[in-house]
């Protein structure tokens, strides 16, 4: 007999209940049970970071956390970063401006990892960004445009300005 657990999560502001197996990973519950398909699965080892979400504000690879461990937590995915009226968060806007995404598969996880960085280090330099995001793989962009986007977002968020500096060569 499998024992099952009832857990409660807040996902992008919405309260959710789920019945999960003790072995269920957070990513499985988000995707399969709750239909939250922003975070993706790209590996089996926690190496690619495509599943990264914010758990109580901290970036977590949701394939490395049991769903039961997240009981009661507040989960934010890329879908929860934009304002309610759909206005993109300055980080999302910077990704758009700097062409920091191509196929988009790593992007939701990348945004969450970068959110965590900007919270802990609001004024990163290029090396800080490259070190902080090294746990998130992107096979399309070669990373440079993502670095530029994160640096630009940091500047915007730091200055309180609403516009994000355009992509510069």
């Amino acid at each position: 007999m499998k024992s099952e657990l009832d857990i409660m999560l807040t996902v992008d502001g919405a309260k959710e209940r789920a019945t999960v197996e003790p072995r269920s990973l957070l990513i499985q519950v988000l995707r399969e049970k709750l239909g939250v398909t922003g975070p993706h699965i790209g590996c089996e080892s926690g190496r690619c970071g495509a599943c990264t979400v914010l758990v109580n504000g901290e970036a977590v690879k949701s394939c490395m956390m049991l769903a039961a461990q997240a009981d009661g937590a507040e989960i934010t995915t890329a879908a929860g970063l934009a304002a309610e009226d759909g206005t993109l968060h300055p980080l999302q806007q910077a990704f758009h401006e700097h062409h920091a995404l191509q196929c988009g598969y790593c992007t939701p996880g990348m945004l969450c990892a970068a959110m965590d960085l900007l919270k802990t280090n609001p004024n990163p330099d290029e090396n800080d960004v490259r070190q902080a995001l090294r746990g998130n793989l992107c096979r399309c962009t070669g990373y440079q445009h993502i670095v530029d986007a994160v640096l630009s977002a940091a500047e915007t968020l730091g200055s309180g300005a609403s516009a994000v500096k355009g992509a510069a060569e």
Partner: protein
Amino acid sequence: MNAPNLNTQQHAETGKHTGKAMRRMEDTRFLTGRGRYVGDITLPRQLYAHFVRSPHAHARILKVSTEAALAVSGVKGVYCANDLQGTRDVPPNWVLPGSQVKGRPALAREIVRHVGECVAVVLAESPEAAADAGVLVDVAYDPLPTVFSASDALQDGAHKVHGDLPDNLATTFKTGNGGYDEALEKADREIAFNLRNQRLVPFPIEGRAVNADFDPATERLTFYTAHQIPHMLRRMLAGALGFPEHKLRVISPDVGGGFGPKMHFYPEELTLARLSCLLKRPVKWTERRSENVAATTHGRDHEMEVRVAVQKDGKVLGLKLDSKANVGAYLSSMGTGVPTINVALFALGVYAIPHSDVTITCAYTNTTPVDAYRGAGRPEAAYMIERVMDRVALELGLDPAETRKRNFVQPDQMPYAQPTGTTLDTGEYAMTLDLALKNAGYEGLRKEQEEARKKGRYLGIGFSNYTETCGMGNGFILQFVGFDRGGYESAVVRVHPDGRATVLSGSHSHGQGHVTTFAQIAADELGIAPEQIEVLQGDTDMIPFGIGTFNSRSVPVGGSAVKVAAGRVAAKMRRIAAHLLQCEPDNVLIEEGIFKAADGNGTVTIERVAHAAWTGHDIPYELGIGLEETEFFHPQSMSSPYGAHIALVEVDPETGEVELKRYIAVDDCGVIINPLLARGQVHGGLAQGIGQALYEDAGFDAQGRPALEPSIPRFDMLPRFETDHTVTPTPTNPLGAKGLGEAGAIGAPPAIVNAAIDALWGLGVRTLDMPLTPERVLTSIRNAANKETEA
């Protein structure tokens, strides 16, 4: 974006929207977690598949025991080859004439021939139940002798991968105009060395994914798959299944990276399609990474011996290449085409080399099938010829840039038919190289290198002047080389009664941004804003027959189809507007959705024109109804983008570490539609090319198992890239665009390895193999030192 116009030839014009760094219209859904990939699609009555795969590289299947698996709650069934009656093997569709062909079985029959080959599949009501049952399927194997490398497989008496073939030879291809020995007689010396283009795992972050949905009510099969070529897949799948093609719908929604392997037809696709038809339920499978590294096709894997006959001034008189290519256990889709045609034809690169003898031998081995991966053969060719150029320069004490200039095909020789069989359409190689030298500050770099050497530091500068002939067409040529595909691309352009437009394209984006670039192209023709245009792809019920996205062909071929179709719609709109304005069509101007008579008398909106077209009100009868055009753009020939890349590395001779300090790329892809997206393509290609040079390897162990975690570059493993462009438009299509997607992956490996060899030349290092791991570099330095001591 800095794109200096250094071209001396005539330019194709960019327009109001093309040529601009427009931000992508498709971004928002990805940024807000609303991308829709196959794995995100779950259907009513969904079944989930788990494949049971061979842990052996070569073995006889003695028995498959399924009792324990079938006892797992929620399991619907366990299926083996016998359950797929009437299903053919997955056939390759590029087969060089004369090849010995072995396609991939949907599920293995009696023998498995590589690690990861599918033996059985479990279907269950949940992915967990399928996986739980999968580990309980007990397969008894009798291991058989193995062979892993092409050179071993081609030895007399090698273990045979396919018992019913006489040997492991898949095919042999020869090209060139011959006369190498004659060239050697005239030459001052011969330079010979071996190269290894290692096997790579393409590693899109999204693995493959399938949801096969047979509907018994309509007897239609809807087949969701993460794919680059929906129409080709439909044709191949229908053939292998024996399913009516007109009732098979392939949908490829958002695709999480392709890079080549997602353009092929796979055993898992065939198996799941068959089982959905049998069970009349949708069946879903998302590939795990451990499956991806073993069962999704790999790239490269050539063992090359090259000889060149050179004059002391660096002029290369003849080239002789003998390469052994590993095609794996079966022929994947582009089977014996990629390792032969795509390598051999481009062996002379951008150089006028009077004599050439090229032989490529393809061998079956007990490894994962090898197929197209970003560049697909051209990286192997470029790596060889560009390594040759730097080697010639170093051996003769010449400057590698100058050596190249002495060998370049000259602009006044274009179009230039290489004796290996390809034609270079356009190119001003010295111009592009000069810009790279300028951007690099080359003279300063050489001084820096000299100064550093005095301080015991080893800097190296490496070059690469790759070409990547691309934009595949036309059908006649493809037939000649055994490639069972068309060489065109489709587009439908439809202006709706409200004046907005839909573009349907047979290309298929997996990150390239067609939604934006194709809208820019159509917008310039139609005289409306790109935001008024929606580009749709990836659904065979909706899109006319297409050839899809690979071979850097989407813009040159797919974009040209959009331009031509949109141009015809625009011409019809002009005629209607002229009728409404009572003037000649040639005198009608269109801008931002307003038609004006050139003499300034009156205007009419696109809505009015479109309304007239779709109602037939107030238009001449002979114009016919509607504003919709279909184009199958079929280029006569391919184009040859090229570039000049320069790498600066520092090698630490104590640790063997190679630091890539700078990477300077000047690419020429003809006319650029969107410079921001073009830069993204260059960056992505460079990341994969640098990955090959420094880090990546499929990493088979002694049992033939590929590494579970190939060393894909992370953020901290790549430098900033210094990119730039020259523009030599191609006459092969109306955009003047040549394609760019594979440039970086082709250009980077030789530039970096050349730089590392340049750094260590003084220590006696003459050659290095990729990836340049510290261990490998240290070994080369030690071997060179030992040789010197012996001498």
